[in-house]
C-alpha cells in the first residue's frame, strides 16, 4: 500500500518536475517581455473588436493606451465606465469621454426631395447600387437616397428609416463607430461629438437654381447664416461650413434659414443649454 503511495508521488512529482523543467527552459528561451498592464487593460475593454477606436482590435488599442499612443477615452463603445477603469489601471486622472454620434445631414426625404419624374426604379433597393443607375431616383445628386444601406451597416441597430424615407439615428444606441459613414455612398452621414447642436442638413453644392429644382429643403446657398455669424460659418461652394471651435450658439440666427437646411438638432436641448447661461434664444 505505502509503496503505491510512494510510487504515485514519485511518478507525478517526476512528471511535474520534467515538464516544469521543460517549461522553464522554454520560457527562458522564448521570453517576450510584455507590460502586464496591457493584459489588464485588455480585460476591461468590451472585446467586441469593432474597430471604433480606429485600431485593429481591442488588444491593439490596449497596447496603444498603455504605451501612451492612444487616449484613455479612445474607446467609444465602452463609455465612461471603461475610461474610469483604464484610468485606474494606469494610475491616471480619468478623462471625460465624449460620446460620438452619427448625424444624418440631409433633410430631403420622400416628401421634400424631388424624384426623377415618371420613372420606376426596378433594381435592388440599396443606395450604393442606386448610385450607379443614373445616379439614383432622386434629382439631387448629393442627398440621401433612402435605400437604407446605413441601417444595414449598423451592427448596433441604431439607425432606422422613418416614414419620410430618411434614416434616423437612435442616439442611445449609437456608438459612433462610423460603419454607417463608410456605407453611405453619398456621404451624408458624419460622426460628431454628442454636444454639437448646429448642423447644415444639406450636402448640395449645386448652384441656387438647380438646388431649388431638385429639393424643397436644400440649402440654396443664400449665405445669410454666414453673414450673420461672425466668422464661425463660411460659405464654400454654395454651402455653409461650420467651424465648431469658433461657434457660439447664442449668436446664430438659425430661424433666418428659409429651408431649414441649417438648424439645431435638438432645439429643446439647445434652448435649455442657453437658458442656463441666461441667454434668450428663439427657437423655430
Amino acid at each position: 500500500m505505502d509503496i503505491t503511495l510512494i510510487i504515485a508521488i514519485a511518478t507525478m512529482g517526476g512528471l511535474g518536475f520534467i515538464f516544469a523543467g521543460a517549461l522553464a527552459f522554454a520560457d527562458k528561451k522564448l521570453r517576450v517581455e510584455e507590460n502586464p498592464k496591457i493584459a489588464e487593460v485588455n480585460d476591461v475593454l468590451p472585446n467586441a473588436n469593432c474597430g471604433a477606436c480606429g485600431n485593429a482590435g481591442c488588444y491593439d488599442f490596449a497596447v496603444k493606451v498603455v504605451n501612451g499612443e492612444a487616449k484613455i477615452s479612445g474607446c467609444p463603445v465602452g463609455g465612461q465606465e471603461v475610461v474610469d477603469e483604464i484610468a485606474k489601471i494606469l494610475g491616471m486622472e480619468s478623462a471625460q469621454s465624449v460620446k460620438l454620434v452619427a448625424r444624418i445631414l440631409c433633410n430631403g426625404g420622400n416628401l421634400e426631395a424631388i424624384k426623377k419624374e415618371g420613372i420606376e426604379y426596378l433594381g435592388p433597393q440599396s443606395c450604393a447600387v442606386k448610385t450607379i443607375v443614373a445616379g439614383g431616383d432622386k434629382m439631387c445628386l448629393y442627398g440621401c437616397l433612402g435605400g437604407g444601406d446605413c441601417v444595414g451597416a449598423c451592427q448596433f441597430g441604431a439607425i432606422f428609416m422613418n416614414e419620410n424615407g430618411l434614416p434616423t439615428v437612435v442616439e442611445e444606441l449609437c456608438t459612433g463607430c462610423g460603419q454607417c459613414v463608410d456605407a453611405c455612398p453619398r456621404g451624408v452621414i458624419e460622426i460628431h461629438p454628442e454636444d454639437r447642436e448646429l448642423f447644415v442638413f444639406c450636402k448640395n453644392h449645386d448652384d441656387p437654381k438647380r438646388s431649388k429644382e431638385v429639393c424643397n429643403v436644400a440649402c440654396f446657398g443664400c449665405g445669410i447664416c454666414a453673414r450673420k455669424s461672425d466668422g464661425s460659418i463660411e460659405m464654400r461652394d454654395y454651402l455653409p461650413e461650420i467651424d465648431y471651435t469658433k461657434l457660439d450658439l447664442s449668436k446664430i440666427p438659425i430661424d433666418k434659414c428659409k429651408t431649414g437646411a441649417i438648424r439645431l438638432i435638438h432645439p429643446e436641448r439647445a434652448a435649455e443649454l442657453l437658458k442656463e447661461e441666461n441667454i434668450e434664444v428663439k427657437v423655430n
Partner: protein
Amino acid sequence: MELFLIFISAALVNNFVLSYFLGICPFIGVSNKLSSAISMGMATTFVMALTAIVSWLLYNLILIPYHLDFLQIPSFILVIAALVQFVEMVIKKVSQPLYRALGIFLPLITTNCAILGLALLASMRSYNFMESVIFGVGAGAGFTLALIIMAGIREELDLADVPKPFQGAPITLIVAGILALAFMGFAGMI
C-alpha cells in the same frame, strides 16, 4: 486487416468529431481557410500519433505494472502537455520562422479533448501497441476530414442568408448533424 479496420473505424465510421464529439471546439471555431484546416489537421494527427505511442508506453509499462492506473488521467494530460511543448521546442529549433508561422496551432492542441480522448479510449479498449498508433493516426485523419469539409462549407455559409440567431455555432452544429447523418452511410464497414 485488423489495423486497417481500426483506421477506417476511427476515420469514417466512428469519426472522432461526428460520432464521438471529440475535438468539437476547433471544429466550431475553424476558419474558412482550407490550408489552415489541413495544417491544423496534420499537426493534430502528428501529435495524436505521438500521444498514442507515449501513452501506450506509459500505461502499459509503468501504470499497469505498478498498479497506478488511477493516475491515468493526470499523467496522460501531463504527458500530452509535455509532448506538445516538446514538439513546439523542436520546431522552434528547426526554424524560427516556421515556428512562428505554425506555432499557433500547438497550444490549442494541448486542450483539445480529442487528444486526451484518444489516449483514454486506446487504453480502455486495450489496444496493443500498433493498434493504438493506427487508432491515433485514423482519429487524426477523421478529425482532419471533418475540419476540411467544414472549412469549405463555412465559406459558403458566410455568403448565405442564415437567420441571425443561427449564425455561428448553431448553424455549424446543424451542419455537423447533417454531416453525421451522411457519415452514417459508412456504418457497418468494420
